């Protein structure tokens, strides 16, 4: 049996090692280098279309309850201008002075901006377990603090009440073990379940853009229509609003002593008056004939609201922009540590040209696989032409040939394959 015990311990240790290594591998952040790549748009807009006018007068705002239309249009113009394919401006109207319809084709964007928000208030009920004893109170309060749970104290002996989550229960177990190690423990702490009520407030915001992209000039044609939306949601629970409304110890006070003497367990206590948690029934009705209010400055600080709306607009516009314009995207790739050149840090700092020079100064036969990979990364990060991508691909393959089986190097080859396929489309869409 002793042998089995030892084997068991070994197994447990092994299991913990596996779990630990899985967690570690999942949590360790690799060394990443960021660089920008250009991606083609989903549809190809004729090259002659260079000017785009966003017609504010043709963008409907009837359902724009948050009043974000101007922000949406300006953000759309700014983002499209930043990608360089079009020269975009927001206009109130379009007349002959802005372009010559017989000589050039331009595009206009029109559509609709829909936005809204809600503040949804209410009261919920929960069941909580209160723990007594010194270590019980301390570990329960500690676990609640760690997991940011709301606690209440029961009115009888100040037991600490918390609802309990998996993380919270685990934390409580760890804390009570720690207390028992320092000798601060009872055999089993007393427990008392309670019914609690609490108030909450849910805030949500919503933005939707329905845009069409029309080419006008010698002919008129709608080239794209899209509808995209984004939403924000936050639930706010007021910790101070938690109240115990029914505690089971109340029963024990009246009948507990009697039961202790008679030693007869009685389940359940057949007293309907006592058994009614009437305060858990909310008196207030939260959905009235006027619906729900839009969040105001008391629900949402104006600065934060602005930031959230900016995010919502950005997200809602993303697909429309990617449909009509080539766009830039940040890509993250892992840097190889080591090698003769030790250029990893330079790449992480974005100094691709310097990294390239240092690695290229090393004779090819002396370069290690990390050097070849980092050289590929330097070419990829600073790529200006298809040839740069071809070179990067070649270097990644060299790295893989030098150190077969390294996934990182293979990922480089795969990534370049996708870019090269897209580059052909991109070339057809841009003047370069």
């Amino acid at each position: 049996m002793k042998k089995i015990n030892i084997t068991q311990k070994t197994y447990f240790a092994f299991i913990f090692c596996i779990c630990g290594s899985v967690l570690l591998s999942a949590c360790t952040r690799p060394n990443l280098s960021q660089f920008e790549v250009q991606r083609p748009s989903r549809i190809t807009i004729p090259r002659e279309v260079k000017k785009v006018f966003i017609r504010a007068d043709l963008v409907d705002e009837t359902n724009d309850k948050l009043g974000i239309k101007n922000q949406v249009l300006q953000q759309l113009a700014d983002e499209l201008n930043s990608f360089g394919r079009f020269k975009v401006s927001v206009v109130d109207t379009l007349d002959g002075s802005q372009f010559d319809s017989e000589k050039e084709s331009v595009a206009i964007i029109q559509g609709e901006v829909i936005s809204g928000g809600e503040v949804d208030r209410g009261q919920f009920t929960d069941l909580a377990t209160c723990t007594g004893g010194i270590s019980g109170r301390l570990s329960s309060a500690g676990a609640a603090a760690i997991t940011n749970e709301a606690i209440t104290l029961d009115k009888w002996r100040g037991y600490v009440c918390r609802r309990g989550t998996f993380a919270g229960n685990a934390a409580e177990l760890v804390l009570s073990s720690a207390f028992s190690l320092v000798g601060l423990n009872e055999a089993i702490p007393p427990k008392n379940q309670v019914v609690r009520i609490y108030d909450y407030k849910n805030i949500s915001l919503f933005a939707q853009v329905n845009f069409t992209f029309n080419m006008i000039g010698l002919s008129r044609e709608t080239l794209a229509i899209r509808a995209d939306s984004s939403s924000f949601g936050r639930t706010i629970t007021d910790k101070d609003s938690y109240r115990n409304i029914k505690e089971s110890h109340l029963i024990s006070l009246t009948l507990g002593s009697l039961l202790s003497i008679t030693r007869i367990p009685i389940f359940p206590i057949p007293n309907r008056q006592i058994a009614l948690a009437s305060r858990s029934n909310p008196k207030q009705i939260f959905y009235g004939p006027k619906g729900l209010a839009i969040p105001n400055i008391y629900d949402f600080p104006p600065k934060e609201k602005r930031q959230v709306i900016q995010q919502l607009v950005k997200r809602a516009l993303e697909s429309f922009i990617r449909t009509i314009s080539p766009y830039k995207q940040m890509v993250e790739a892992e840097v190889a540590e080591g090698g003769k050149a030790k250029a990893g840090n330079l790449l992480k700092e974005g100094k691709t040209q310097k990294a390239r020079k240092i690695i290229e100064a090393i004779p090819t036969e002396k370069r290690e696989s990390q050097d070849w990979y980092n050289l590929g990364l330097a070419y990829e990060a600073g790529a200006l032409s298809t040839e740069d991508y071809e070179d990067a691909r070649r270097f990644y393959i060299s790295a893989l040939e030098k150190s077969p089986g390294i996934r990182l190097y293979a990922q480089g080859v795969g990534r370049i394959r996708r870019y090269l396929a897209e580059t052909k489309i991109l070339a057809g869409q841009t003047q370069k």
Partner: protein
Amino acid sequence: MKLFNNYILNKLFLMLLISAFLISGCAKATITVRSPAEINTRKIKNVAVGGFEIGQMMLKFKTERNGVWQTHPVLLSEEQQKSISRSVRARVINLLTATPYFKVIFSDEFEKLANDAALQQLVSVRGYKTKNVDAVINGKLWLEIERTDGVDLSKEGLEYFRPPRSRNSIGLNLTVDQVVWWPYKSTRGTLGLEIKLTRLLPTEVVATTFETRTYSQRIGGRNGESFQQIADSFTSVLSTSKTSKTDSIESSSDVLPSFEQIIADMALSIASGFVRRVAVTEKVVSYPIAEGSFPNAKILIEAGAYDVAIDKLQQATAENSDPNDLYNLGLCFEAIGDYGLAHTTYREAWKADPENLLFAQGLGRIERLRRENPQLQRQLESR
């Protein structure tokens, strides 16, 4: 004996853990494949999207306290109803434009038609001006969404436990039944959407679909009873390019979505079903990679570097035809869409090891694709 049982249990647990670990780490190739349309839509290349008529639209708030229900309808103006209809139409267009199959013609002429009868009339008298349109998609929608503020009632057993204070004491453990009210909020939405594809010449309804989607979500209520479900999966059959990492927007499963968001999600779900019926669609699938003798094949295929993998695997199999390498080579050919070579290579691998299920599956997949392919080719060639 108990210890021995524990030992066996631990061993089983360990085996399960290792298996789970190995399965999760199993290498797979991600491939984009095209599926033919379910119905014949050959010779329909240019499609215009007409208007989406409103059958019925009902949004309401409901409350319940002590068994008394109250309903507060949300009154929608005509413009708001039209806006919802336009949003649903635009979601259908989002999906149609993502297929490699149709060219969507955005013509005001068809969009302005109020209903199906107007479209039929326009088509029957051939009064339409947009001549490069082969077919028109139009639809009709029925929508009902309600938000409820209600209260559940349940009997709960509250426990009280007091440990024994001395050897002579038995302690106390009571369960007290309590009637507890559990307030909740919920939302439930149903969208019925009829979508019709009408060929203009000769005039015929090529495809029609009527589908409903129901969305429901509930917050609060009795502990652990919250649920969130959408009747049908929203997973699109259309391939989508990988989105870049963007700033994530805060969201919470405890916040009910707005009416607009529910409508958008349900419309997208129904539209994806319709597009699958009438258009060639693309989907991304994952197939297992074999453990071959060529060391880099697995990671190259996993990374999507098919061209280099083909190059290396062809060299490797010319020298030593390991069936696993042949299978991986077939997988690369399948990934780049060269089904002829994929079939030949899978067949070679299977001949070398006829018992291998993986090789047989590869072969079966290609044969299925080849059976579907004439239809797929006809559909693509008719573009």
